[in-house]
Structures are given as C-alpha cells and as structure tokens.
C-alpha cells in the first residue's frame, strides 16, 4: 500500500531518528511512505479559523494526497494535529473551504480540494490499516517484560470532536500498540496531560514542573520507559526529567521488528 507522507520540519532536523524508524518499519509492514514533493512546514499549531494563509501548507499536502487517492500520513503529533484540523475545517465550513480553495486554484491550475483525503497519524495507520495483530505477527524481537508508559500529550487526542483518534480521557491505542510489541503498557492518569509545550521557550521552569508531574506519575505506576510520538514532548520530558528514558514509539517498533540496528547504522 502507498500513502502520502508528510514528515514535517522537526523530523528532517532534530528528530531525524523518528523519521528513519518510521520509514524502515513501514517497509517491513508493507506500507510505502511516499514523501510529498516540496512540502512546507505545517506551522506547528492550528490557529484560529479566521486565518486562511496559515492553513495553506496543510491544504497543499491534503490535495497532493487527494490527487493520488492516497491517505495522508504523518508521524509528528503536531503536524498530524494541524493537518487533521485543517481537513475538518475544509469538510465542515463551506465558507472557509471556498475561500481557501480560491488561494489554491489561482496559484496552481488544478481542481479545488474537496475534503476527501483521509488523514492518519502513523499510529492510526498501524491500528486501522496494518492492524496491531499483523504487527504482532511480524515482531521478531518481542519486548517481553518491559513496562512501558505511553505518553499521549495533547495534540493526538484533542480537540476530540476533530481528532477522533480515541477516547480523550481513556485512550487505548498506544497501550494496544505496546502490547502488540510484546511489552506491558503502564496505564497512568497523567498520560494525556500537557508537558508544557512551546511555553518552554519563555518559561522553562514551568514546563519542567509539568514534565516532572507526568514522568513521576508514570514511575509511580511502575514504568521503566516513556514513549511518545511528539518531538516537543520528548524534548520537554528528556530535558527536565532524568529518571527513566523517553523514546519515540517508532524506535520501539523498530526494535521489536528487529531492525533498530539497521536504522541506527543507516
């Protein structure tokens, strides 16, 4: 299966490993990630719907996928959030959609975007397209006995009316993923609370206290490791807490599929 892939700035820079693991694992799982040509930064956050300009890069990616009849996949939580919210706006706000399409068609002579592209986070791709049971079959190096705490953060789950990934208060997608790799998920309450996000730039102490609250709660439930899908979450947790390792979920996947060393050498 081929999908349109939106890596995003961070995955090309500070989070290269997140990208490399995702690509290699996808190959093994029978999915080809076709990187969108000339993609542009998503902007990091989805801002007010009265701005059209900040949505155009997402819109280009959505239409790129539409032209190829492919789903649009990203790994970074922030990119996924922006793409998904933009798609929702295009589907549900006709006035916005008309306005936004005007910008598109004037620049590039092709059809307007009609809102039909399916937007998946890489985790959703694993759950809904590949299937966690199929992943479990491909695991050659099961992570048996490891107690792993998933960290959802904010961007994957909220706003739930748009993201529709999982129950925002009682999500299970990450836990099921960890189970498929043979490890034991640690369910803890702070898994959907904020790490401090971009405010870390202005107020590092603040994000430190938020990050610590998350990791301490995970540790109190017996976690040996925290996994996340978001480079900013990883940065905040890594920088501010030093109790247990914080890794990307794709790294765990690569390890379980037995290709982590290949990736690291690549």
């Amino acid at each position: 299966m081929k999908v349109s892939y939106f890596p995003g700035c961070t995955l090309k820079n500070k989070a290269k490993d997140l990208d490399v693991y995702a690509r290699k694992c996808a190959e093994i799982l029978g999915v080809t990630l076709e990187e969108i040509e000339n993609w542009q930064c998503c902007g990091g956050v989805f801002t007010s719907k009265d701005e059209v300009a900040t949505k155009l890069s997402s819109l280009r990616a959505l239409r790129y996928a539409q032209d190829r009849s492919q789903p649009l996949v990203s790994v970074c939580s922030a990119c996924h959030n922006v793409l998904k919210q933009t798609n929702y706006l295009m589907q549900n706000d006709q006035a916005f959609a008309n306005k936004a399409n005007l910008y598109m068609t004037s620049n590039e002579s092709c059809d307007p975007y009609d809102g039909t592209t399916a937007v998946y986070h890489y985790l959703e791709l694993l759950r809904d397209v590949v299937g966690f049971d199929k992943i479990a079959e491909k695991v050659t190096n099961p992570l048996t006995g490891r107690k792993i705490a998933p960290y959802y953060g904010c961007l994957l789950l909220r706003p739930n009316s748009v993201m529709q990934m999982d129950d925002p208060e009682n999500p299970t997608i990450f836990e099921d993923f960890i189970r498929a790799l043979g490890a034991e998920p640690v369910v803890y309450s702070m898994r959907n609370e904020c790490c401090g996000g971009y405010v870390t730039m202005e107020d590092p102490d603040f994000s430190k206290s938020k990050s610590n609250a998350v990791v301490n709660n995970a540790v109190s439930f017996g976690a040996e490791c925290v996994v996340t899908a978001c480079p900013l979450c990883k940065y905040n947790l890594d920088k501010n807490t030093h109790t247990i390792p914080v890794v990307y979920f794709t790294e765990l996947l690569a390890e379980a599929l037995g290709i982590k060393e290949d990736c690291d050498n690549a």
Partner: protein
Amino acid sequence: MQRIGVFVCWCGSNIAGTVDVQAVSDALRNEPGVVFSTNYQYMCSQAGQDIIIQAVKEHNLTGIVVCSCSPRMHEATFRKTAAAAGLNPYMVEIANIREQCSWVHKDMASGTEKAIILGKAAVAKVNLNAPLTPGETPVTKRALVIGGGIAGIQTALDIADAGFPVDIVEKNPTIGGKMAQLDKTFPTLDCAACILTPKMVDVAQNDNIRIFSYSEVEDIKGFVGNFDVKIRKKARFVKEDICTGCGLCTEKCPVRKVPNEFNLGMDNRRAIYIPFAQAVPKVATIDPDACNMLKSGKCGVCSKVCTAGAIDYKQQDEILDEKYGAIVVATGFNPISMDKFDEYAYNQSKDVITSLEFERLTNAAGPTQGKLLRPSDLKHPHTIVFVQCVGSRCASCAEKGKEYCSKICCMYTAKHAMLIRDKYPDTEVYVFYIDVRTPGKNFDEFYRRAVEEYGVKYIKGMVGKVVPEGDKLKVQASDLIAGKQLHIDADLVVLAAAIEPDKSARPLATMLTASMDTNDFFTEAHPKLRPVESPTAGVFLSGACQGPKDIPETVSQASAAAAKVIGLLVKDKLTGNPCVASANEMMCNGCSTCERVCPYGAITYIDKEFRMPDRTVATRRVAQVNPAVCQGCGACTVACMSGAMDLRGFMSSQIIAEVDAICK
C-alpha cells in the same frame, strides 16, 4: 335524502346584534334536504330545546343543524336534545355563528352573508351524516406492573388494596430495585431497608399480588382494557415453590468468585445466590454463566445439600400468556457509565467510586459491613472528595453525559457527607458543586445542616482531574469563590453519576407504542395535567422511568398511577369515541402505510377471504382499525393511497361537501 331542521339562535343580541337571524333561517330553508327552518332567542334554553324536539316529531326530521355558539360550548347539549327527540346524537351539526362570526365581524351585511354560508356548509355536512354508535369494550380487571422497585411496589400495593389483582414483572431475582441498595434516605435519615422491606413483605403476602421475578415482558398486544402480554419466566434452576430460602446452597457452592451485582461488584457471590437477606421472593437462583454444573455437568453440590430438593438443572424458560386491563411502567433508572469521564480516573483506581457504590460501602449489609473503608486497601479514608454533576447538565455538543439535571444527587451527596462527618469526625469531606439544588420539603434545611452542623466543606467549583499516585488520589479542582486552583490529596473520590432510564425501557416502549423523549424517558400524556399517564390509553407511568425522581416523588407518582388504574378497572365497559377511522376492505390494497402513521397502533392487518365475481375465493391482506384504540386523528385517512380509509364523523365526502358549500 335527509329531512333536515335548521335552528338559528339569536343568543340574545350576541348573534342577532350582527347577524340578521331571520335572513339566515330564511336562506337556509331553501337548501337541499332542509324541510324546516326557524330561529329563536336562546336555542340552548329549555324552551329552545323543546322547539327542536317538537320540530323533530312534527316534521319527521332525520338531521339537525344548529346555527349558534361554538360546538366546543354546546355540541354536547344539542346532541342530548337530539337523543331526547329519538334521533341519533351524531345527526347534529353546529354552525359556529357566534365566536367565529358575530363576535369577530362588525358589519351586519357581511356577518349575515357569512352566517348563511357557514349554515350551508353545516347543512351540506348533515346531508352526508350517518348515525354513529360508540363501541363498547369489556375491561379485564387485572393490572400489570413492569418493574419491582419502590415505584412498582407502591403502585401494586395501592391497586391491590382497592381489590384488583396485580402482577409485578421484575427482571431481577428479587423485587426491591435501587432503593434496596440504599443505606439511609434523605431528609429524615431513616434506613432504606427498614422502610422498604416491610413493603416488600406486604407485596409477598398480599393475595391480590403475584410476583413474577427473574422474568421479562416479551410481547404486548391489545389495547386499553384488553392487553395480551407474553411474559418470559427465565429459568432460575431452582423450584420457586419448593425452595425455603435457607441459603445452605449459597454457602456450599464451590464457585466463589462471581462479582456480586447487588454490591456493584465490590465483593463476590456464589454461582447459586440469594441477592440479599430480605429478598422477595426469598429463593435461590443459579447463574448459568458461572455454574459448573450447567456449564460442564460437573459439580451438583447445591443439589446434594438441598434437603428440600428444590434444585432443577433441567429447568427451562417458561412463557406465560396473561391478560390485563391496564399496564403500569415502572422500569426505573441506572447510573450512567463513567467510561467517558476518565479524567476522574474511575477506571484506574478502585478508590474512585460512584455514589451508588458509596451507598453499599456504608450499608451494614454491604461489602464492608457498613464500615467506611476504601476499596483498594480497606483502610479508613481521611480525606474524601465528592464531585457533583458528573455527566448531568452536559450540552449535547459536549458529546458525553446527559443534558438534564439528575435531580437526586445534591441531596444524596449532602446525606453522604453528613453521615461521614457524623460517624467519623476525623474525616475531611469536600463537596464540589456547580449549584446546590434542594427544592423539596425540608431539603434545604438538610443541606444547611451538613454545612453548618457537620462542617462539610462545600466548594463552588469543579474537579478537573484526579491522578492516582502512591496511595493518594491527587485531586485538581477549582474554587471559584476564592479564585484558586486546589490540589487535594484525597483517599476516596465519590462521583455523583448522572442517572438514565433503564435500558429495558426503549424496547418496552416499542411494544407498548408509548412515546419516549430523546433521553428515553417515557413521555406523559400532558406535562402538567396528565403527568402519570402515557399518551397511549391504558398505559401508566410510575417513578423514574418518566424522569429523574427521588423516593418521595416516586411514591407520590406511584400512588397517582394506581389511582388512575383503579379508575379504569372499576369500569365494566369502556365507551369509545364513535368518530374513529375505518377501512373499506374492498378498496384496501394492503400496503401498510396507515399502520405506520398511526400513533396509537390501532391499525393491524389481517388476511381475509373474499368471494370474487367469478365465484372463486381470494385471500387479501386488509387493514383493520380497532375502534377502542383509535383516537380519531385521521392521519391514516390522508396516508391511505387507495382511498380505503375514512374517518367517521369527518368523512372525506363530508369535508368536501363543506368546502363546496363554502366556495359556491
């Protein structure tokens, strides 16, 4: 051809002031069918009525038109007059020339002209009138109460006291419902069991009441006075009439780890069980999903220890066919699932519980024998946080919870908080509230006592997040009056979960053709004036199935429903409204459209044999209207595509004749 008499009323000057009554009676005298026409000062007076009776006899009248005030005023009067004159009362039509003519028009000429036209329309209609006789149906003098909680119990007792037999169908092994699970009751703090269990015994001992426990209503046919109900008595694998309720089997059963639903899963029961000590009927029930004997044929301990020989592993479900004159719905409520509110960590910590679970925790017959111990480690909690409105008062756009106020939570939370402070003064109790709603006799006084005498800390604000960490529950909440965010290390968190109608209500409503609102509460016939009746005749509502209610309100409604049932059952026969729909079988094409639009389920289809012109016999599907159920709205007459359905008293031909007369 009819012989019609026209009687124009002056109504003093009310009509005669704006309408030339003489001109009206003169004009109508020339209408087809009219053989007599007159006018008089007060047609509704005895003298006026005598004029009508006299004229019927003298002129051999078959139909009467009275041009007078609104039929809503005196139609019944003139129908009686007709009957007194020996005419069928439905041969009378009223032309409304007061409210809809003389009172709203000032000009004599146009008023008279309109009165003549209205009179002509009435004459045209009477020309097509046919005598109608109201149908009579017998009443089965037995009531069915669905649900055996306090609502059903009270309704059944009141009906039985009036001398009518009543059956209670309860889906659980015992009656008692939610109230049996409660500890104390507000605002007087008497223990629920102490006031409920005597009533349960009364039910068991009342000769007029039969209890079908562990049973469900499977099908309902029929109509007011004549319901045919199928009841499924589920196999309990214990002979109800032989079991003595000694409980030996429940002690010896080797399957020990079945979650006990009566204690909301906070402890375990055996595979054979009696829900609680005061159960009615007090007989054991085998849980087929847990019993080794029923699952694999290996065990049989209960059968061996039962000296009465009551165990019957081969028992089958039994279907009972019963007849009832009235049905009372008392299916009650349940707390909603807390799955969508996991910010309160209900699924992550045993020490986050619902208020109903709290009732069991403080109940002397509960899993902790009434000692307040928290479920995780059975330690005494020192800091307890109550959260109000969990899932109540949620906007539909928030996609979780219910839009309505659950009504009972403010009071039971005040009760819980007060009882804790009374028994364990070393415990800190916080109640987070949006509003405290205490409209009820002695309710606000009760809540104030919790605050002023017992020192419960009421905080205007909400809990946003509960995080279990170590042996504490970290509660993050707002205090809106202080403008603070609070962080409380609690030992126990109690959630006032919204309540919703029992899941069995929706399929039951379909069987009853009774209407429900979007929340699956049963709709009452009128929100103010008929609050205990369903719009479907013969179906009555009792308790929380109609809307959230506390015990005093439930009992009031239960007795009110009983009074309505008694009022129905004392009648030997029900007289119907003769203006009902009827289908012309020769024209009916069997399409079922009318059946689907009927709000009362009055239309059924039957296969009927017809003799055809060529002397063969053909079977055709045709509509049949049950005149006892039909209320005469006429929706079916318009829906009918073949023109087979018509409404007596308002036939299409009559209405068209009125249209023609007006437009002539």
